[in-house]
């Protein structure tokens, strides 16, 4: 194992002879010899950190299973003819509960992200991110509308149930922005960082965020949003810029849908 000429595969950790294009065990592409950086030798502390990280990363799996169960429960409630506004409210409250649990489970990481405001740089990035999102999002959703893919309801379920006009802004715009940022960019990203590289964890949390919005057609747009919010969190080391952009986007959609506009 200590032979310096052997190269360790990143996919399965098997040692490979130098010059092999693919790993002999799993077929993962090996980095070229001249590209491999000299990494410091692993220590026993690294090993323990790795084991602990893998253990903690299972929390993301539990979170995913929990959210899938919530989706199933919501579908069952709809099938039982529970009022859509009540179903939506229960989903939002469950998200608040999940955000609190996630925040407590990763207190040091999430706490650090919540104590930093992001500063002026964060605000500038948030405004820029919002501008990009509205422009690209409007084009994307207009394209979907042009193809005949109509959005599936949303904020109007509260109005249809006779709730005040501010409830969609609270429950459909502000609450998801805060809870989803804590859950995905706070908890999930911190846990994934323990087993994946920074780029990998950014992509995986964005993929989970997009997947749990349940729509193949909106996957590309929500994946891009997840990447943007994740990048904001990395750049500013704060959750607030992401929350602002997220809430701004949700509020724009809520306003557009309530006003009966075809934007986005």
């Amino acid at each position, binding site marked *: 194992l200590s032979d310096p000429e052997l190269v360790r595969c990143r996919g*399965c*950790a098997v*040692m490979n002879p130098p010059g092999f294009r693919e790993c002999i065990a799993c077929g993962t592409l090996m980095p070229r010899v001249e590209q491999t950086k000299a990494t410091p030798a692993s220590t026993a502390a*690294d090993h323990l950190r790795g084991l602990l990280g893998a253990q903690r990363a299972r929390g993301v799996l539990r979170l995913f299973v929990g959210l899938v169960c919530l989706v199933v429960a919501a579908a069952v409630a709809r099938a039982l003819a529970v009022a859509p506004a009540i179903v939506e409210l229960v989903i939002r409250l469950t998200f608040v509960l999940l955000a609190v649990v996630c925040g407590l489970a990763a207190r040091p990481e999430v706490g650090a992200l919540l104590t930093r405001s992001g500063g002026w740089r964060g605000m500038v990035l948030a405004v820029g991110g919002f501008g990009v999102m509205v422009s690209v999002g409007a084009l994307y959703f207009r394209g979907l509308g042009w193809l005949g893919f109509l959005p599936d309801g949303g904020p109007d379920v509260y109005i249809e149930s006779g709730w005040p006009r501010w409830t969609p802004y609270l429950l459909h715009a502000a609450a998801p922005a805060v809870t989803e940022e804590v859950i995905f960019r706070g908890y999930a990203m911190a846990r994934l960082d323990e087993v994946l590289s920074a780029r990998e964890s950014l992509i995986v949390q964005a993929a989970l965020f997009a997947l749990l919005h349940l729509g*193949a057609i909106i996957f590309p747009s929500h994946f891009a949003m997840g990447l943007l919010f994740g990048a904001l969190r990395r750049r500013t080391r704060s959750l607030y810029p992401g929350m602002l952009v997220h809430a701004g986007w949700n509020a724009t959609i809520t306003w557009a849908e309530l006003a009966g506009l075809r934007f986005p």
Partner: protein
Amino acid sequence: MSGGDDGGYERGRRVRKASKWVGILAILFAVSAPILYEQEQTKTASTLAALNGIEDGQVLRPIGGRIYTAGELRQRLESLPRRVLAADLILAGLMAGLWVWARRSPLPAIACALAMFVVVQVVGGIYSPASIFEGLLVKIFALVALIKGLRSALEARAALRTPPA
């Protein structure tokens, strides 16, 4: 050559198998797209025929808790086959992308593929419970291979930090 890492080889085999299943799923989604499109077109045609005599503005009985007018429902039904086709093609594209990524970074790619597969099955099961049992054997094989691959790739990441013997 491998430093006598027999467990590593077994791990590698599982990771390779899971990566292959990501590719197989991409092909299956791509192949099933036109078939499902045809099926949906046949189904919606009969429902649209039932709506023929109803005025566009007439309010229908709630469907899944939502109230539609006949016009809205007609519009939705007309776009349904295209939605199904687009969704399947997007999923095929995503799986193909994950398969390519799995050649470089198996752990995150397999994790994303597994999550996507589970969500697709759950959502499909919600909309059409009978679909859970369609191709059940293939679904079980895919699920088992992806779970084993994910576990092995996770073990490999932990082993990457193991100090040299």
